[in-house]
């Protein structure tokens, strides 16, 4: 009856009392008995373990040199791939010819190949897209026999170091480490604004590995509900909501993800899908911008809330809710560039009423990455 894919950790989630929901074709834990608020605070103060095995893990295995693969990959993204050092990870964006975003992803240089992690909802399209454009230089190999876990929060390093020593890793390092649970592919990164790790582990070892992490006093399992609130507080985009095929990286405020080498005047300027629009917006500024928003009062402003300056429609909320650490409603959305300056007062329409909100810098919380 159900077409949902079950996670390698499905039994563990049920044992932990998870409430499961369908998400991107997977049966995913949305929350545990601790509840979204408690799980959120636990991640910020101790450490949370997230099962993100729905995400797509892909290897780019060069047929020739890794430089050739890097150059080919650069033709799909406005990002410096060639300049990424071995053992390092970087944020990337697949763009379309109109300058919109097909997906956002993480990619790591693993010496003789690239390791790529893409969004669950996009992975089939991403893999087809990469296979169509990269097959001359590399094999695009989906990894289907490994789970992906994220361990996030101030206690993450200590908890993971009980299994493998990760104390020497910096933010965005990406390494392979042998462990009692087989080879672990570890990056020091995440989607919460906290220091933490994302760990790929063989499906056959995933449950034992997860149990070992959960045996640490400070580690609790965290569901998708808290994950969404954590990333919103951290100002991080959710694909399909805050960034889409219609939004450009510049509109989305992801200019930092476009390194100098790919910008006008750079060594390898342009040469990626949508370069014309993206490079033009980079110099002239976009017509609209993604901004942080702080509703006054307590009413959350959710995705789809229309935004106004006076009676003029100026944009829409793309993600919104309550920020447990902020202790107030928070949101992000797109507004006409004229209204994108922090502290600009605008309104949002909630249940027929125009309520005030303030354009705000993001992140809404202090990030604690180990740089």
């Amino acid at each position, binding site marked *: 009856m159900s077409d949902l894919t079950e996670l390698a950790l499905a039994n563990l989630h049920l044992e932990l009392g998870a409430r499961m929901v369908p998400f991107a074709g997977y049966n995913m834990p949305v*929350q545990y008995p601790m*509840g*979204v*608020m*408690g799980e*959120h605070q636990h991640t910020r103060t101790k450490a949370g373990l997230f099962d993100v095995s729905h995400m797509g893990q892909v290897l780019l295995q060069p047929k020739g040199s890794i430089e050739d693969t890097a150059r080919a990959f650069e033709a799909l993204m406005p990002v410096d791939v060639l300049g990424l050092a071995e053992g390092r990870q970087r944020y990337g964006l697949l763009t379309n010819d109109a300058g919109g975003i097909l997906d956002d992803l993480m990619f790591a240089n693993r010496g003789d190949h690239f390791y790529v992690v893409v969004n669950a909802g996009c992975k089939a399209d991403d893999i087809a897209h990469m296979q169509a454009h990269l097959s001359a230089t590399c094999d695009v190999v989906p990894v289907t026999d490994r789970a992906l876990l994220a361990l996030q929060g101030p206690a993450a390093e200590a908890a993971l170091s009980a299994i493998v020593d990760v104390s020497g890793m910096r933010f965005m390092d990406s390494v392979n480490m042998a462990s009692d649970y087989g080879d672990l592919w570890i990056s020091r990164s995440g989607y919460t604004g906290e220091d933490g790790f994302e760990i790929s582990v063989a499906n056959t070892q995933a449950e034992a590995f997860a149990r070992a992490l959960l045996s640490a006093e400070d580690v609790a399992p965290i569901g998708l*509900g808290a994950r969404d*609130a954590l990333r919103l507080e951290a100002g991080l985009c959710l694909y399909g909501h805050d960034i889409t095929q219609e939004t450009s990286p510049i509109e989305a405020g992801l200019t930092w993800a476009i390194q100098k080498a790919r910008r006008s005047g750079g060594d390898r300027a342009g040469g990626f899908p949508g370069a014309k629009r993206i490079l033009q917006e980079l110099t002239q500024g976009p017509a609209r911008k993604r901004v942080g928003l702080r509703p006054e009062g*307590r*009413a*959350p402003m*959710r995705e789809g809330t229309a935004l106004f300056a006076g009676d003029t429609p100026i944009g829409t909320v793309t993600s919104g*809710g*309550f920020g*447990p650490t902020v202790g107030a*409603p928070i949101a992000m959305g797109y507004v006409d560039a004229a209204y994108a300056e922090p502290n600009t007062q605008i309104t949002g329409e909630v*249940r027929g009423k125009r309520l005030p909100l303030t354009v705000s810098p993001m992140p809404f919380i202090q990030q604690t990455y180990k740089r």
Partner: protein
Amino acid sequence: MKYTEDHEWLRIEDDLIVVGITEHAATQLGDIVFVELPEIETQTAKGDEVVVIESVKAASDILAPIDGEIVEVNEALTDNPALVNEDPTGEAWFFKLKVDDTSVVNDFMDEDEYKALID
């Protein structure tokens, strides 16, 4: 105490009907972060959306279980929405209705019937 199929509870107090949501509903909704109460002296009809309640996950409406006039609302919930999770059937009542005949509550489920519904 009586119960509706929409997971509200009703109890008679000083000739008024006090309305709140059940523990089951509060648990299902998750952590409540916002409550918008109706104006007092509002005439409501059964099925009207009278209260907006938002959890960390989503917004929901609370419907008027019967026709009546809203004569009192629980302002404490505006400042402390979490009270709905802490004490849904006690401190966290939402509003009080003045009705012609309080015996209408007898049309609703008793505790055993409600328990059978949610099990």
